[in-house]
């Protein structure tokens, strides 16, 4: 055994390796991305590892491997589970042979997500078990248990850490080497593996009968824990348990029940936890899941117990909990002293805001600016700018202000079409990244061609999946098995679909980029512009820009493009050399040619 200091996501990855996982697939998404990245960094001979094109593909790859008896792991963020909802709903009916664990990382806050949805609710909707770890240490053990339960009940199971578990670090004792699980291979049996209404009917009945049995089994699962013996009890799960413990470590007599398996609800254990209890406080994040389940148990058993939590306004309905919020709620519930305050900061000065912005030198800035300039030159044309999920959502920030909508992966392409149908004379742009294009953009383009919408598709191709930490994708020519593979060409895909106007431009060649946009905006049908320039985080900077004495301090560069490397020092425009990558966009904006490259005078 050896000790490793790893992130929660690393602990999940190492736990899966310890369980002998054979096939791992997933799609990047904060806070889940490091699970697959960790596996790629440890020896993993004999297992297949992939970034799939999207979560649906990942789920299906893992499903058939699990039919063959392989242990499979699928990773995604919570909104990715929506993409994979089609296969998972049906898979729940069919079941698996090898253990299949689907990690769907929730993001209370939300810190970097569109929604505050709760994977525990999804598990109940699918009728499959869900595991809810409280810490990286527990995640390492629990994911191994999840594989066992999955195999025992022949069902896929969900595993849902939250951001604070995924991104917390702890030291974990792991084996020196990992041995992949030996499996039988696929045994053909169309009565088992082909979903037909008759099979669904039979399996639905089986599942409803089975789930209470799993609930009983979970009542004896040693990660569902009851401690203390007071008349006031606290129920909690996930990272909220850590927040509750931070306060209750000084009050060990308080009855505390940690629910590690929210569905199927461990009812027998919960009834034991409720013995002699008069009042219950539920501290959990996202949905009031445990609170609702408790109310059901208490109602069905006609117990005289009051339940406080989100539904009674004692715990906040949205956003994440913290050690501080938990301490406050607990002290008022238990009548114990509140935590000592820190320094009095009531007179704190106003702090500068640091909203996330596109990096200095980011080629997306130039792409957005080119479209903006082009449309400013066509003032009689109304334009719509449909954004998408990725770094380029930040194109909405001032001064660019180039994202009118953003909904979900790939939606910008189809939403641009909706705007066309409500305002046919307008120019409708869709901005989509290269990875997002592969993940969920292609069907939208086919939809536009087939239904004859006018739109300009702008693929912001930076040759990586930047926002989530630079994962490779089908266009990069590399995969997670470490192989160099054929690059899938976006241009050829579009040609194959029948897009007649396809232009590839370097966004940093501003004049050409602007002219290309103008030309495309004037045409009808589906037009595509591939703005091709690599992400600055994976390419070498080309130098630094310099400002000469010719600068008239008009600050047009700052006002027009908002590059973080352009700052004012003592009121004078200055280039932050630590940030500048020498992309040169500012030099093309300057009205007096005061900005230039290294040899610029």
């Amino acid at each position: 055994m050896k000790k490793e200091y790893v992130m929660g996501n690393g602990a999940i990855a190492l736990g899966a390796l310890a369980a002998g996982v054979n096939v791992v697939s997933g799609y990047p998404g904060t806070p889940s991305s490091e699970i697959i990245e960790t596996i790629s960094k440890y020896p993993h001979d004999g297992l297949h590892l992939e970034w799939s094109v999207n979560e649906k593909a990942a789920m299906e790859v893992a499903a058939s491997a699990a039919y063959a008896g392989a242990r499979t792991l699928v990773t995604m963020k919570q909104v990715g589970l929506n993409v994979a909802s089609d296969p998972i709903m049906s898979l729940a009916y069919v079941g698996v042979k090898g253990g299949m664990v689907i990690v769907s990382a929730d993001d209370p806050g939300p810190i970097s997500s569109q929604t505050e949805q709760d994977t525990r609710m999804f598990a109940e909707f699918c009728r499959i078990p869900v595991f809810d770890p409280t810490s990286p240490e527990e995640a390492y053990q629990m994911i191994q248990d999840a594989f066992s339960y999955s195999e025992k009940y022949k069902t896929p199971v969900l595993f849902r850490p939250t951001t604070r578990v995924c991104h917390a670090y702890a030291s974990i004792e792991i084996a020196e080497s990992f041995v992949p699980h030996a499996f039988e291979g696929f045994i053909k049996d169309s009565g088992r593996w082909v979903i037909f209404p008759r099979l669904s009917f039979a399996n639905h009945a089986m599942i409803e009968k089975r789930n209470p049995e799993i609930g009983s089994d979970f009542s004896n699962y040693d990660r569902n824990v009851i401690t203390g013996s007071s008349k006031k009890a606290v129920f909690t799960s996930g990272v909220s348990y850590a927040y509750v413990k931070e306060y209750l470590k000084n009050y060990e007599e308080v009855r505390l029940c940690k629910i590690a398996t929210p569905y199927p609800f461990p009812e027998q254990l919960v009834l034991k936890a409720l013995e002699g209890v008069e009042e219950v406080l539920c501290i959990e994040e996202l949905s009031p899941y445990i609170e609702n389940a408790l109310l059901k148990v208490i109602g069905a058993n006609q117990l005289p117990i009051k339940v406080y939590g989100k539904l009674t306004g004692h715990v906040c309905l949205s956003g994440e909990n913290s050690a501080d919020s938990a301490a406050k709620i607990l002290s008022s519930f238990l009548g114990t002293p509140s935590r000592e305050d820190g320094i009095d900061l009531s007179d704190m000065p106003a702090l500068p805001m640091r909203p996330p912005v596109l990096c200095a030198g980011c080629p997306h800035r130039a792409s957005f600016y080119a479209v903006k300039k082009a449309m400013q030159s066509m003032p009689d044309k109304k334009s719509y700018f449909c954004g998408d999920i990725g770094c380029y959502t930040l194109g909405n920030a001032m001064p660019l202000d180039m994202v009118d909508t953003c909904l979900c992966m790939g939606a910008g392409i189809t939403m641009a079409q909706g705007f066309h149908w409500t305002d046919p004379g307008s120019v409708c742009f869709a901005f989509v990244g290269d990875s997002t294009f592969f993940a969920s953009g292609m069907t939208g383009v086919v939809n536009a061609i087939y239904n004859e919408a006018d739109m300009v598709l702008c693929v912001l191709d930076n040759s990586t999946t930047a926002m989530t930490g630079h994962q490779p994708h089908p266009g990069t020519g590399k995969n997670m098995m470490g192989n160099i593979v054929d690059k899938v060409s976006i241009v050829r895909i579009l040609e194959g679909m029948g897009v007649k106007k396809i232009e590839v431009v370097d966004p940093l060649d501003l004049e050409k980029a602007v002219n290309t946009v103008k030309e495309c905006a004037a045409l009808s049908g589906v037009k595509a512009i591939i703005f091709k320039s690599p992400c600055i985080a994976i390419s070498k900077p080309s130098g630094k820009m310099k400002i000469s004495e010719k600068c008239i301090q008009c600050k047009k560069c700052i006002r027009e493009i908002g590059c973080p490397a352009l700052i004012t020092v003592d009121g004078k425009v200055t280039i932050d050399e630590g940030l500048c990558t020498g992309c040169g966009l500012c030099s093309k904006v300057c009205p007096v040619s005061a900005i230039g490259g290294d040899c610029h005078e």
Partner: protein
Amino acid sequence: MNKDILICGVGGQGTVLASKLIAAAAMNCGHAVHSAETIGMAQRGGSVTSHVRIGSNAYSPLIPKGSADIVLAFEPAEAVRNLPYLKKDGTIIVNSVPVKPTTESLNDTGYDGAEMLEYLKKKCGCLIIDAEKICEPFGSSRYFNVAILGAAVGSGKLGLTAEALMQEIEARVPAKFIDTNKKAFLAGLECSKCIK
């Protein structure tokens, strides 16, 4: 030993390496360690924090407010932003050189960090270090992340020895940067003594 250490700054300043070095040094001294980092949307230019919790008494991955023993701040406004985490008799070590957000350059509110430093002096025990000055011999302010560790050790509030940190620098920093990092660490250690 139980110690809560909060490291804060602006994305790209090297706070993550500082937190990793502290965590590793504490672990090698036999302590239980937990930490948490800002990851995701907060890329370059955003406010970032690392919470390092040493000792077996820590449950929450993030430090509760009012309980950090020491705050290592790579930027004056970030120091003030994270002041709610500092405990009443806690210490703050702060870089005096401000990082101006793009939005400030647009609106020109004149943020220069001075007001923040004044506020810090009023509120808590603080050691102010000019990162540009202390890093001048090394050619880049990027070495500040290690210099501030030297200052933290020198302050005696970290509960870790200079040897323990130096050992981690040797183990974790790429070979060609070890020497400069060690010098930066010692410069930080030195300045914590002379300013007191």
